């Protein structure tokens, strides 16, 4: 008997004969995006050391990023809205991203409850962009701010994406004496720029 058959057989023999129905999912309503919801997102993300910036009126995202990093470091963008020094289609192997300072992408949506943004291979193009670069900038349309995780998990992206991450702040560790270090194995900082999709 294969291990698969053996395991399933043992489970069938041993599984508790109880009447345990699967609870119906908690219903949720979609709240309109308000300033309060955006504030909730900002506060939640700040717990993790992530920054949330508004785009000043009349300023382009490109100009804001140039202002944030005036020294023009190596930048790789997975969104056409931003032009960087390293176009993502030219990346053949994820390992090449290790020399990049800044990664930029646009999130599919945000979650106010936890300050998270949703990214998948559609948004990242090369998944390692979210981890191998030193700093990550994520554009987020405030109109796609969801209130709760429950609502987030109802989004179709979780059923289609090969890789999906709810990302909340830069990588961190508190493994030595509980002292918080931002920048563990992944990115060392994370900045969310609130702006509708350009074009």
């Amino acid at each position: 008997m294969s291990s698969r058959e053996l395991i399933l057989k043992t489970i069938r023999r041993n599984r508790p004969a109880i009447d345990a129905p699967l609870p119906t999912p908690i219903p949720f309503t979609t709240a309109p995006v308000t300033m309060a919801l955006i504030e909730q997102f900002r506060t939640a993300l700040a717990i993790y050391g992530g920054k949330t910036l508004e785009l000043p009126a009349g300023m382009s995202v490109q100009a804001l990023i140039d202002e944030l990093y005036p020294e023009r470091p190596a930048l790789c963008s997975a969104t056409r809205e931003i032009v960087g020094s390293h176009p993502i289609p030219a990346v053949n192997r994820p390992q090449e991203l290790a020399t990049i300072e800044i990664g930029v992408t646009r999130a599919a949506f945000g979650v106010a409850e936890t300050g998270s943004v949703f990214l998948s291979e559609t948004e990242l193009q090369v998944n390692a962009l979210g981890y191998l670069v030193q700093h990550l900038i994520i554009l987020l349309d405030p109109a796609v701010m969801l209130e709760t995780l429950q609502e987030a998990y109802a989004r179709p992206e979780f059923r289609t994406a090969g890789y999906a991450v709810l990302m909340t702040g830069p990588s961190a560790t508190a493994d030595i004496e509980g002292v918080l270090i931002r920048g563990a194995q992944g990115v060392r900082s994370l900045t969310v720029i609130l702006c509708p999709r350009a074009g």
Partner: protein
Amino acid sequence: MSRVDHAVLAKDFLALEANAEFHDRRLWELRIKRDQQMAMIPEWQELRDRASAIKEHTLSNLDRYLEEFEANAQRNGVNVHWARDAAEHNAIVHRVLSERGVRTLVKSKSMLTEECEMRPYLEERGITVIETDLGERIQQLDDEPPSHIVIPAVHKLRGDVSKVFARTIGSEPGNEDIHYLAKSQRDDTRPYFLNAEAGMTGGNFIVAETGAVVTVTNEGNADLSANVPKLYIASVGIEKLVPRLADLAIFIRLLSRSAIGSPISQYTSHFRKPREGGEMHVVLVDNGRSDRLGMADFWTSLKCIRCGACMNTCPVYRRSGGLSYRAVYAGPIGAIIDPTFDLRKYSELPFASTMNGSCTEVCPVKINIHEQIYTWRRVIAEQRQLPFVKREAMRIAGRIFASPKLYRLALKLQRLAANGLPRFAIYTMLNPWGHHREVPAPPAQTFNAWYRANRKARDEQS
């Protein structure tokens, strides 16, 4: 395996005063932070009820959901393997790696691979295995198992880490700055991510409905392990299933809040398909779980989501350190699942508890931990007198066979016994050298029946 004497080992840990004091304080802090998170969620108790109900439903239909998961994962292009036990798990992983010429494997923390003792197995076969989580890496470099399921090196202080790193990865001796130490490990680990041919993670959950493996981490190392090398392997226990994404949402809301008092962890990652040009494998591991499912008093321990909250709140765990349990799983959850792996070795662990019930109170999936601890004590107390009887019987038999006179007497008595003389009478009569102490109470089972049952149980475990 000899019995783990938790009380004695705990004394060794307490002798390291500074470590012991910090350990107690740090874990209690996490308990407080967990309480604060709970207070911010008005529906907390309802979430626990649901989480428990979802797990009980899933476990009582585990076969069906495993098949659903497998079918969906295969449809997504994932190779699904089934491993009956640790040995088969390790062999599968080794086969996948060696067939592809993998020499270095980067991995994120996984209690399951600890349970399977995978690292030494692969290393003996020439594969370099690099733990990439800071705490787990500290433990790997110090040649120690993790002492906590969420914070592997929580029993160490900065000075300890500094010594380990200076000895192993060439950090500056005497430099105990925590930022420096963390950066040293980051810099040392980075090249492994870039050069490894394969990456591996465990899984906090698997979702039947979508075929996803879900990891909940904070360092970015799981996502690097899975997203940089071409080959990705996830090893998961069969109990990690949840039926639907809607159910997953409940567990994600509970897990990090319970574990570290944080609304979520930095990376909640869902792996469903291999990357373009890459490969993804999932190994579904049983290793005693399907047997545990049949233990009427203990099967609900399979609901565990490994948050560690029961450990953080346990006064005994906090003051004895995880290593004193000499088991993959320490603390209250360890006390109820370790005996299912090896009852003899871990028979002391259910006694490492004050029975204050606080573990049960904090458990996000409502496992009746302290009641199970109590039930284990009864089971062990019952079994304990049996080895005593067994010892005595063997000793008596030895004397009988050594003495022709006694041997003939025994044969006579046996015939008498066949005519209705109770067994214990034989023991009493044959036991003149043992009159100074009480003859053990007769076991409910006959010795032979007990011995056969016990042998069988042990054979199955080994």
